[in-house]
């Protein structure tokens, strides 16, 4: 029952994350969803998963989102009218803090599953080694895609056609090209930590 309650709160936060026009607030609401998720995971006897969820889901993804917002600029779109906006403006921060507090609180001992004789790490690293290996594949392809997507526009075509003026907002030199690629490094580091 309590889990349903938590999930309903999470659903509420999720609605807020979608409805609010302020992107950063939206990210905070998402972080609270993540925090609630991780609490539910705790109550479902999945502490390790909960920890990873709170660190990756609430932490890394939020960072990524904020990072993206800072690059892309905070463009607000009037999606649909926000009736609750004023009341709820101040809520997310408080909620997030409360939730964090709850996480830090000592939680009841988790009871390991009956059928699973092996521990979490055995299962993860040995039984399901293939999944882990595949995670590496996924991360590698994601990194490649990221580099590909965010790298400077391909040069040869641009170099060959001197006649066509290039838009100003595109990087114009090789050095900048390198600089942008290097900018991605922090993200990569963060992802490597994951593995």
């Amino acid at each position, binding site marked *: 029952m309590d889990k349903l309650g938590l999930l309903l709160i999470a659903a509420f936060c*999720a609605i807020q994350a979608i409805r609010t026009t302020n992107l950063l607030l939206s990210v905070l609401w998402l972080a609270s969803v993540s925090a609630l998720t991780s609490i539910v995971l705790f109550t479902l006897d999945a502490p390790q998963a909960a920890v990873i969820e709170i660190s990756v889901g609430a932490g890394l993804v939020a960072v990524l989102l904020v990072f993206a917002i800072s690059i892309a600029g905070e463009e607000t779109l009037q999606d649909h009218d926000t009736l609750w906006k004023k009341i709820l403006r101040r809520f997310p921060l408080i909620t997030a803090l409360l939730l964090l507090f709850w996480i830090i609180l000592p939680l009841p001992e988790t009871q390991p599953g009956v059928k699973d004789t092996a521990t979490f790490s055995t299962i993860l690293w040995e039984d399901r080694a293939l*999944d882990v290996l595949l995670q590496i594949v996924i991360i590698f392809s994601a990194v490649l895609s990221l580099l590909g997507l965010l790298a400077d526009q391909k040069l040869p075509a641009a170099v060959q056609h001197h006649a066509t003026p290039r838009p100003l907002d595109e990087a114009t030199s090789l050095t900048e090209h390198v600089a942008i690629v290097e900018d991605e490094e922090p993200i990569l580091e963060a992802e490597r930590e994951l593995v």
Partner: protein
Amino acid sequence: MNDEELTLLGVVILFGVGVYGLLLTHHLIKIVIALQIIGKAVIIAFAVAGTMSERVQLAQSLIVTIIVADTMVAVISLALVIQVKQRLGTLDARELSNLRR
């Protein structure tokens, strides 16, 4: 309804909220956020499945994989979103509807 089924109900609600977000929002970053919400719902579904079948540890290891994959999807979509912003100057998904018919 027992506890697990109620939790699954919650999962479905959360999932529904995520889908609702995908259906209604035009903001690209919010679309990514909606995908994340759906991801959370799925994660809890797995945890519930773990308790129901008494294979919590297995479920946990699956959840880790899901989180990693979801994050990678978020990373790539955000990279795309940034590109969209830089090339088109907007984050409105409605502007991205030139490929039609």
